[in-house]
């Protein structure tokens, strides 16, 4: 079975890859492109660990096929920091002890960035509902919510 040749933009760089029809974007990122920051927790769209942004829309990369991403812009956790400069969300996650084992952290950060892009001044409840697609088993969510609220305030310049 011949593979498909796909050209996309990932974290600002043009990237070519070959993939089988059945490979998800998550498989492509992890197994073909070795961008392992995006995690697999369930492969059924229920945990959010594989969250990426696809043309500005938050998706579970396990629910998108690699062949669907041609010509699109993909943003993953690897592109979140600007060189050595952490994104405010990343910095606030560290400050607020918003991560423990860390396996859900990349997905949560990508989801939180997407949330703040749509709603720069969310209430606590809006953050809780906005991140309800991302499972975390360690933190009980509280420090994550606080980190997102704090980052939002900083990003608004408040």
């Amino acid at each position, binding site marked *: 079975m011949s593979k498909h040749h796909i050209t996309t933009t990932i974290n600002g760089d043009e990237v070519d890859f070959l993939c*089988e029809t*059945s490979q998800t974007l998550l*498989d492509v990122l*992890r*197994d073909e492109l*070795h*961008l*392992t*920051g*995006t*995690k*697999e*927790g*369930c*492969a*059924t769209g*229920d*945990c959010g*660990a594989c969250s990426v942004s696809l043309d500005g829309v938050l998706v579970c990369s396990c629910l998108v096929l690699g062949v669907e991403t041609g010509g699109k812009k993909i943003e*993953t*956790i*690897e592109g*979140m*920091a600007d060189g050595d400069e*952490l994104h405010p969300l*990343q910095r606030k*996650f*560290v*400050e607020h*002890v918003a*991560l*423990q*084992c*860390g*396996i*859900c*952290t*990349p997905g949560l*950060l990508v989801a939180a960035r997407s949330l703040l892009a749509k709603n720069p001044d969310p209430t606590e*409840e809006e*953050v*809780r*509902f906005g*991140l*309800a*697609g*991302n*499972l*975390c*088993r*360690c*933190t*009980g*969510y*509280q*420090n*994550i*919510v606080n980190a997102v609220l704090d980052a939002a305030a900083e990003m608004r310049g408040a």
Partner: protein
Amino acid sequence: MGLKPTPYGTAIPFEEKELKFVGKNPTERPDAIEKVTGRARYAADYSLPGQLFGKVLRSPHAHANILSIDTSAAEALPGVKAVVTMDDFPDLEVEIAAAGELMVNFRDVTRNVMAREKVLYDGHPLAAVAATSNAIAKRALKLIKVEYEVLPHVIDVVEAMQPDAPILHEDQFTKGVDPKPEKPSNIATRIESKLGNSEEGFKKADVIIERHFNTKAAHQGYIEPHACVANYTEGGYAEVWTSTQGHFVFRSQIAKILKMDLAKITVTPAELGGGFGGKNTVYLEPLAIVLSKKSRHPVKMVMTRDEVFRATGPTSGTNTKVKIGATKDGKITGAQAELNYQSGAFAGSSLSMAAVTVFTRYDIENILVIGHDVTCNRPKVAAYRAPGAPMIAFGVESVIDELAEKLEIDPIEFRLTNAAKEGTQTHFGPKLGPIGFVETLEAAKASEHMKMPLGPNQGRGIATGFWFTIGNETSSTLNIAEDGTASFVYGTVDVAGGSRAVFTQIVAEELGIPLESIRVVQSNTTSLGFNFTTAGSRGTAAGSMAAVKASRDAVARMCDIAAKIWDVDIDEVAWEDGHARPAGANVGDFDPLSVADLAKKAAYYGGTIAGHAELNVVGGGPGFGTHIIDVEVDKGTGAVKVLRYSVIQDAGKAVFPDYVKAQFHGGAVQGIGMALNEEYIYDENGIMENPGFLDYRMPVASDVPNIDTIIVEVPNPNHPYGVRGIGEVPIIPPLAAIANAIHDATGIRLQDHPMSPPKVLKAMSEL
């Protein structure tokens, strides 16, 4: 817990002193930047050149004899490089060893990683394939032909205990019963533990309450599925990168299962994506090594979520009975409990641990605890955060609440009247040392939470919990580099990023150098001596003891160098604030020497500076906690919403207070999930119906409130900084506290878990 007490263990006594780093939140955790940037490497992130992908064929039946397995078609598929079945693994004799808080029997472990005579649960492995891609491996699984003879199965713990139940193991005769039974039974073990005479105790009681409780199996729910990469090399060596709470324990299990020498196996623990007790036992690793040996390629194996649910350890589902009697002034006179715990397909649940926690928060003279460990056609249970304790605390703390209500005594006062304290005799042996249980109750009583008013359909519940801190083998090395910076190598896996930070704080405190000068590194199995797995809340408690010992070792060596430089006796050198200083008559004769000064000259004065710890840590301080929960019950749907939550717990000493609070949050929310939603559901054929996160619904951010925390600090006298284990206690009280809050809101008392809307609605309609 089957671990032999030793007279040769190490406990370093608590010392009150001024602290620079311990007890203060470090601004940056050693693991944090890697984790927020996606650079941290978890097991599934590792790849080796030329690696193959391994997949497991799993039983579609709950209970069946394996008549034949034909792998020829799978082997013939292009891209398939190896297929393994039971024939590729040696059979093993009965041999018991510790693996965290639960014991393992190698005869069973080898059968759990690869079925032999029969399959015992939906998901039981019976073959594995290595191929050049995941897709080919999956196709190959479909080409393996297995002939089964399906047998009657049993899922429920009470049904499994009946004399006419389908028997899982024909050679299993109930242990702990005299004389030995003539017929095999699913009851693997009966245990009994008592203090005084419970029946006599009940005679002195004015009120006696007896209730039966049932809880369903729940999974640890770590977001990272089990994964490993294995490479079998020429000369009979194996290297494994894996998701584990204890790489040394994994090495021991692999060595037994594959009959290899320990020294020929290197296990490297990857960053761990959650364990909670569920990653103390091998599942994939022996399969990956044998596939690698057969194929002469490295083999990577990653479970799907479906496999994690169907085939890795949930906690036991249970059936329990609790009976407690008290006088009208609120003194408990007698208590009994019966614990029937599922162990899954093989014997060995958390029963023995759970049994000693039953009443160990109260000072009761007359106690009887009876327990049964019961096999049934489910995955073998694994430890899950305070294994076994939340389920029996559900019963005990519910009955305590009911007694307090009947006696018209405030539930906190009732607990204070009966609270265990230093010197309280436990029903399982030792007397308790200095503990902080009363302090947690007093803090709860005085908390802001207790002053908050409740609205209509709202209620407040209290419950408490107790768990051990174990010690065990703990090894570490502290290397001082030529420039005076330090690397601390530890071998008790940091399961969630907290203990690494603590080790840095401890080394900084002991050496008197800044946090930035210390790098902490997790060992593999070759770079340190044996470390026990991270279980029993020992990670920070025991690991930091080793950090203290290794630091003091290095300090002694540095003082020795200073003495040689100054040509004085070693008694005339003191270590203070990161420097060797002259002490005694020579004060003022020499300038102090820093770690960097000493490191630079170390070679000439005898060689590199290092400190070591190879300890069997003892004296772990038990942890106690009290939770207060407010709920609101929707009378129309039966849905329970947690409105307000407070965790009050004795940490001994919180080395990294924000992280201790974060552990409290996490345990409480896991407990909320267990209480309200989470359960294993089986169909009539014994097939799990909800092996995915959509149907096995764990709490999401919008399900839970903020968790308030109060850290109580009653130092553990057997730890140099007073540390107690803190990770497990917070999951114990939530079930009962929520049940008690629902009662306060509605008048119903729920004895069946989970307390999901249909059950709440039904109970309200029967009121």
